């Protein structure tokens, strides 16, 4: 997984990531849009045959876009951990 920064300002961030597709990007987009400080969040897959995606974040100015991205990943991570815990609990019951 390689990350290349395409554009970086105090309120915008555009990164190209190799090796992730709709699976992670769509999840991160939803988490980013739940954040009030995020103005725009989206992702693009430039070519379906190459596994690169481009993630774009624009914040409203009071938060750095990298921080918004890290918060979004943290939220996704927590939901994943909660799912794992609940799944173990549900499988034990049967």
């Amino acid at each position, binding site marked *: 997984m390689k990350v290349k920064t395409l554009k970086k300002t105090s309120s915008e961030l555009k990164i190209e990531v190799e090796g992730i597709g709709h699976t992670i990007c*769509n*999840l991160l987009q939803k988490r980013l849009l739940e954040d009030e400080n995020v103005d725009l969040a989206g992702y693009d897959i430039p070519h379906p045959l190459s596994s690169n995606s481009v993630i774009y974040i624009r914040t409203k100015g009071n938060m750095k876009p990298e921080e918004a991205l890290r918060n979004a990943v943290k939220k996704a991570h927590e939901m994943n951990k909660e799912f794992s815990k609940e799944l173990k609990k549900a499988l034990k019951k049967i």
Partner: protein
Amino acid sequence: MEIEVLEKVDMNMRLLIRGADVPFINALRRTVITEVPCMAIDEVVIIENSSVLQDETIAHRLGLIPLKTDLDGYNLPEECPCKSEFGCNLCRVSLTLDVESKEGTRTVYSGEFISENPDIVPVSDKIPIVKLAKEQKLKLEAYARLGKGKKHAKWQPVSMCTYKFLPQIRIDSKRCDACGKCVEVCSRKVLVKAGDRIEIRDLMPCTLCQDCVDVCPQNPPAVDVSWDENTFILNLESAGALPPERIMSEAVKILDKQLKEFVRQIKVKKSEKS
């Protein structure tokens, strides 16, 4: 978030998940299909083949046979410390087939494989591989490896992994005159007529097709079909390589690992810039 196991029979598992959303469940579904590894025959050395099928056709068929998988005992070829193209006994299993037809025509089934590891065998013994006529022989050595579904469909651990919203059907008893048209039109028999009322017989098979809403003669319709956006029914059918609960837990672990790797890469980028 709450999870309830609705059904777990053989290789089929249905989960009811509350408190999730579409991108998360879809990420799990995509991970189950493409990223959970399982075993499949990857390389075939054909020593003798006088059957009617070509070598490559037989090899293709062998690759698609689902094999029982031991995820803990074997490594993915990319991650194996042997780093060899041929592989070692930690990253590949050999299965041999040595059959001939002595009299008459017979079918070669997957149960005739001899595996070097008795735990890594075809899921079913009855999968036909090729038909041999009298005096035709087939002798080959097949090497099975772990792999991921995104590289080749033979490495998909599931035959089906789908999700749908939990249906919510409301029948307005004040406007409903129990004409029974919605009960007749429903292809999944979700509704049932009980006396002078329409009741829900079984909510789970509903496909949200809204046929019952369209056919209701009342205006506005007395039956309302909607869905809960945060509750899902996830249906998973394993192909036999791994048990369904193992597939689900592996998918969650792999998603976890990918998110951790992503955070690590962003941190590296951040420290590089500053």
